[in-house]
């Protein structure tokens, strides 16, 4: 088991290097630092001196890969690639446009992001599994039919509508909770309710339909027929046998998104003014802060790869037939 995990971790390294090279190519080769400087400083009244100063301040004035002028080890290390890309591997993300340390900013913003994403994830999973199980229990009835119709309609609605409509109805008309904002400590719960509820509701359509097919696949298996044949009541067949077996593909399927919960949700956080990583990313995109976007790309991929490894491990844990190979 340990050897397997170590092997999987080693396999992640070339992937991370690939991600790093792609982002590096996107941010420094497709567009030169000169272009970025012009963008940041405004296209008008930009002098070559100002561009040069901007590049020196951020360390973008160095060569891309090989610094021939510097001797010895500095040939490789005193370059943009090493300073800006390779250093991400040790958690050094440099500074944002406003001069703040990106790594510190990220660790501070993780908590609000998680405060929204984790309850949304757990509650959403519970609600959709319950709903899907009910639909599967009443399969091939009018209830099932209209439930599926509802799911298709729900997944055809834009995610923006759920947020805008929910904010308008619950916060503005009914005045149940604040429209947006975030508080410190325990006081934050008033701000959390609305985004969590909207997050759960907007996810119902597609996941319920997906889980329902998983349940229905399980229903037609042989062991279910055996369970019925030996006279078990339908409720026991469902909750003791089908639910447990169907939970395996459902849970192993969602493991991959768990690490990504740290990233927060772009839309929810920007609409509700939550100071998490999602709104950090959106602000960076709007301000064209390349350093922050680059860091977020890197962190996102690291989290996704962790998710992949966790998925593999969870598969082997729940299904003994899969060997560690």
């Amino acid at each position, binding site marked *: 088991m340990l050897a397997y995990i170590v092997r999987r971790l080693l396999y992640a390294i*070339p*992937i991370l290097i*690939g*991600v790093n090279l*792609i*982002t590096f190519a*996107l*941010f420094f080769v*497709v*567009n030169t630092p000169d*272009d*970025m400087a*012009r*963008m940041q400083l405004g*296209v008008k009244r930009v002098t070559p001196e100002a561009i040069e100063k901007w590049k020196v301040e951020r360390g973008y004035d160095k060569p891309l890969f090989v610094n021939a002028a510097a001797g010895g080890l500095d040939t490789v290390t005193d370059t943009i690639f090493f300073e800006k890309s390779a250093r991400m591997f040790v958690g050094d993300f440099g500074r944002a446009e406003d001069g703040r340390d990106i790594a510190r900013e990220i660790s501070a913003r993780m908590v609000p992001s998680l405060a929204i994403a984790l309850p949304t994830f757990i509650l959403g999973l519970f609600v959709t599994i319950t709903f899907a199980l009910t639909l599967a229990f009443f399969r091939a009835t009018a209830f099932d039919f209209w439930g599926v119709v509802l799911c*298709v*309609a729900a*997944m*055809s*609605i*834009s*995610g*923006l*509508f759920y947020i*805008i409509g929910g*904010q*308008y109805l619950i916060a*503005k008309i009914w005045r149940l909770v604040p429209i947006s904002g975030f508080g410190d400590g325990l006081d934050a719960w008033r701000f959390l309710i609305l985004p969590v509820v909207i997050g759960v509701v907007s996810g119902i359509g597609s996941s319920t339909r997906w889980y329902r097919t998983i349940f229905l696949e399980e229903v037609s298996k042989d062991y279910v027929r055996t369970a019925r044949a030996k006279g078990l009541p339908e409720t026991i067949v469902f909750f003791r046998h089908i639910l447990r077996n169907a939970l395996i593909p459902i849970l192993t399927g969602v493991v991959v998104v768990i690490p*990504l919960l740290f*990233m927060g949700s*772009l*839309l929810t956080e*920007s609409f509700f003014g939550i100071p998490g990583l999602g709104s950090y*990313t*959106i602000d960076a*995109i*709007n301000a*064209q802060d*390349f350093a922050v*976007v*680059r860091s*977020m*790309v890197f962190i*996102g*991929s690291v989290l*996704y*790869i962790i998710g*992949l490894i966790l998925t593999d491990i969870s598969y082997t844990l729940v299904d003994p037939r899969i060997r560690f190979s």
Partner: protein
Amino acid sequence: MSGFQVVVLWSDVLVWLLVLAGIGVGVLIAKSPPLLAAWRRVGANRVGMASATLLLAFIVIGLLDSLHYRVALDGKPGVKTQYAIEVLSVLDALVTPLRTQNEKTYSAPFATHLYAKESIERPGLGTVREYPRLKFGASHLADTATLADDVAATALRTGALALFAWLALAAVVAFRCGGWRAVWRGDTVFAWNAVLATLAAILLVLVPLFALAGDYHVFGTDKVGQDVLYQILKSVRTALIIGLVTTLVMLPMAVLLGIVAGYFRGWIDDVIQYLYTVLNSIPGVLLIAAAVLMMQVVIDTHPEWFATAAERADLRLLALCFILGITSWTGLCRLLRGETLKLRELEYIQAAQAFGVSSWRIILRHILPNLMHIVIIALVMDFSGLVLAEAVLSYVGIGVDPTMTSFGTMINNARMELGREPVVWWSLAAAFAAMFLLVLAANLFADAVRDAFDPRAA
């Protein structure tokens, strides 16, 4: 009548290429009995055909909006003609009143007066603050109290016209398919009853709507006084292009790499798997954001490439499609790789190999046709997701060009309107409703296609 200059945008080329490709695929399908049988099953599916009719209506709007031209400006004779900077489409020409009848600012659907008060000179009363009459909305009415009567009369008159047109169409269908009863009860091979019912709904809504749109702002006007219905019509093309051209970009990559990886295995498989794991591990939104930011820098530093603003917006739209394609081919590729791995072990492939048939010929003749159902299902399933994604991306600021009308930019411009007093709900509601209809139709059609093509579902 002044002359005009045909403008061919890159996206127009792709749209019409797609239409040609669609016709080509249709001919191919007609020659292949298994595919024809599957499409017949789609044709017999009532929900599928109803949604296909609705989709077709959207596509017609999109196609009309994909023929562009520039009007010649009135110049002195002998001087080289100059063309207007504005690029128009055939759709613009058809709905000219909607495009040109702009108010000053917001006005509600069917409103007679503006949303905001203004100071108006009244003879005898001096200056008063009141809601001014709209310049175009309901301007033909002398007395605004007769508005409801006028709307009802126009709607009834044109609705009856639409009903007659529909009856004529239905009569043709009934005549060819064995009588009214057979069509009504669904005894026809093709689900004509669903198509006709949807058509009736579309005609009965659209014909009165457009008849009224000449005199009223049926969906109201937005902040700068532009008609919301016009914006909705223009958004359709953007949504369709995002949904269709993107799949055109991702399809060759996904199919080629997926099959090659599964068929040749070994180091080729390793390389391709590495490639899609790397691309997959970058969060989609961030990769798109990074690529769009970079593209924006390229576009901004080369203003000389574009003759008009429309061309610039068009290139950005295509670039967005390209980026979305790059980020979304991995799922289909993995699916096709897995399926090819299974197929290559089957006896008929091994027999072909034993006969010495070349690998590429085996892939083309034996593997690709057996993967077609997966490709078709993936194509229609992706469409709705892409339309929804466009709205989100445009909201985040990494979608289409802000000057290009799309559901995303409409929502983005209108997002603060619910905070106004009184509430300005119409542009948001119209954008969401139109998007909902398009995506719902696409989802239902995708379900019908999947049911017909997926061998496991049968």
